[in-house]
C-alpha cells in the first residue's frame, strides 16, 4: 500500500499529468462531437453505428493516455529517479504493480468522464442529424444494453491501453521509443489490414490487432459481421496488455536498473 501511495504522490505532483488527463477527456469528447456532427442520415436510411460514431474520440484519447502511462515509467528512467524508487522498494514487481494500479485508476476516472460526455453529446447531435426512430434508430442512451456495454467497454479499453503502454515503457525505458512502439502497434494494424486485399489475411490481422479488435467493444450494430464478439475483441487487447506487462516485469526484474 505504501508503494501505491508513493506512486500516487509522484503521479499527482508531476506538472503534466493533470493537464494531459484533462486533455484526454476533452479531446475524446471533442472528436466525438465532430464525428457525430458530420453524420448525415437521409430519409433513405444510413449505415452507421451510433455508439461507435460518438465514441470515435477514443482513437485520439488513447494516444494521450499512452503518453501519461509511458511517462510514469520512462520519466523516472530519464531523470534517474528510477534508482531511488527501486532502492526504496526493492521488490521490483511491486513497483510496477503500484504504477499499474495508480495509472489504471486515473485512466478509469478520465475515461468515464470522456465516455459519458461523448455518449451524451453524441446522442443529442445524432438525433439532430437524422439518426432517429423514423430511420430505424433508437436515440442513443446508456439505458440500452449494447450502448452501456460499448460505453463501459470503452472505459476499460482506455485502462487496458494504459497498462499496455506501461508494460512497453517498462521494457523499452526510453520514452520516445516506447510511445513510438505503442502507437505503431495500435495504429499500424488497421492501416496494414486495410491495404491487404486477401479476406482471410484481413480477418486475421483484425483479430490480432490490439486497437481494431479492442474497439469491437464499441460495436452495437452488425455484430454478426465482426470476426470476434465484442468481449472477445477486448480480450485480445487484454492479452496484449498482459503480454507487455509480463515482458516489462521480467525485464525490470532481471535487468540492471
Amino acid at each position, binding site marked *: 500500500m505504501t508503494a501505491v501511495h508513493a506512486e500516487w504522490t509522484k503521479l499527482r505532483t508531476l506538472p503534466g499529468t493533470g493537464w494531459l488527463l484533462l486533455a484526454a477527456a476533452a479531446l475524446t469528447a471533442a472528436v466525438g462531437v465532430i464525428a457525430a456532427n458530420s453524420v*448525415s442520415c437521409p430519409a433513405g436510411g444510413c449505415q452507421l453505428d451510433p455508439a461507435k460514431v460518438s465514441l470515435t474520440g477514443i482513437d485520439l484519447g488513447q494516444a494521450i493516455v499512452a503518453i501519461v502511462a509511458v511517462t510514469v515509467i520512462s520519466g523516472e528512467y530519464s531523470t534517474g529517479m528510477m534508482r531511488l524508487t527501486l532502492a526504496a522498494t526493492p521488490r521490483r514487481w511491486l513497483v510496477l504493480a503500484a504504477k499499474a494500479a495508480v495509472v489504471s485508476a486515473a485512466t478509469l476516472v478520465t475515461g468515464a468522464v470522456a465516455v459519458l460526455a461523448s455518449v451524451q453529446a453524441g446522442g443529442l447531435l445524432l438525433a439532430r442529424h437524422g439518426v432517429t426512430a423514423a430511420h430505424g434508430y433508437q436515440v442513443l442512451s446508456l439505458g440500452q444494453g449494447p450502448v452501456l456495454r460499448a460505453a463501459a467497454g470503452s472505459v476499460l479499453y482506455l485502462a487496458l491501453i494504459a497498462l499496455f503502454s506501461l508494460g512497453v515503457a517498462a521494457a523499452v525505458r526510453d520514452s520516445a521509443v516506447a*510511445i513510438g512502439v505503442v502507437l505503431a502497434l495500435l495504429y499500424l494494424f*488497421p492501416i496494414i489490414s*486495410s491495404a491487404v486485399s486477401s479476406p482471410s489475411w484481413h480477418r486475421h490481422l483484425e483479430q490480432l490487432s490490439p486497437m481494431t479488435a479492442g474497439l469491437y467493444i464499441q460495436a452495437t450494430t452488425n455484430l454478426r459481421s465482426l470476426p470476434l464478439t465484442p468481449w472477445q475483441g477486448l480480450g485480445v487487447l487484454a492479452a496484449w496488455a498482459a503480454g507487455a506487462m509480463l515482458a516489462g516485469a521480467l525485464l525490470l526484474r532481471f535487468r540492471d536498473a
Partner: protein
Amino acid sequence: MDQLAQGYRQAGGTFTVSGSGDIAPATDNTDSVKQTLAGTFAGLIAVVVIGVMFITVEYRRGMIRTTLAASPRRGRVLAAKAVVLAAVTFVTGLVAAAVTVPLGERLLHENGNPIPPISALTWLQVVAGTAALLAVAAVLGLAVGTLLRRSAGAVAAVIVGIVLPYLLAVVPGVLPASAELWLVRVTPAAGFAVQQTIQQYPQVTADYTPRNGFFPLAPWAGFAVLCAWTALALALAVFVLRRRDV
C-alpha cells in the same frame, strides 16, 4: 474496357469504337503500387521518433546548453539539425522505396495480380515522394520536439497528426465519406497523396475514396499540405527557441 466485342471495328489501320460504357484502363480500383508501400507507416513512425529524439535527448542530457553556447545563433542550430535530419531520412527512404516498389511489383505480378502500367515520371514521384514524405515527417518531429521538449508528447503529437487522420479516412465504417475526404485534404495525412499512382476517369463511375487509394488533392499538392504544416511548426520552433531560456 467494358462491352468489348460489340461496336468494335478494325478497318485498315483504324480502330472504331462505338456504343456506351466506360473506356478506361482496366483497374480493380486498387492502387497496387501504393499497396507495396504500406510499410511507409512503420518507417514514418521510426523517423518521427528519431526526429523528436534529435532535439529532446539534448534537452534531457543538458547537451543543448553546450550546443547553444557553441553556436549562439539558435535559428541556425535548428536549421542545421533539420538539414542533417532531412538528408539522412531522405536517403534512407529513397533506398527503401527504390527497393520495395520493384520487389513488391514483382511479387504482385508473380501472383497474377494486374499492375497498371505507370510512367517513369510517376514511378519517380512515388519513390522520391515517399523519401521526401519521410524526410519532412522527421523534420516535423524535430520541430514539435523543440516546441514541447518532451519526447513522449512530441512523438505522440506527430504520429497522431499524420497517421491517425489517414487511419480514420481509410478504415471503413467510422466516419462519413465527406469527413474522410476533409481529413486527407487539410491534415498532414494529405502528404500520402504523393504515393497515388492511379487516376480518376470522369467517365467511369467508381468509388473514388481514400480507402481505394484516391486522394482529393493532386500528389504534389497533398505533399505541399504536409510541407506547410512542417514549415509552420518549424517557424514556431525557431521563434520559441530564440525567445525561451534554454
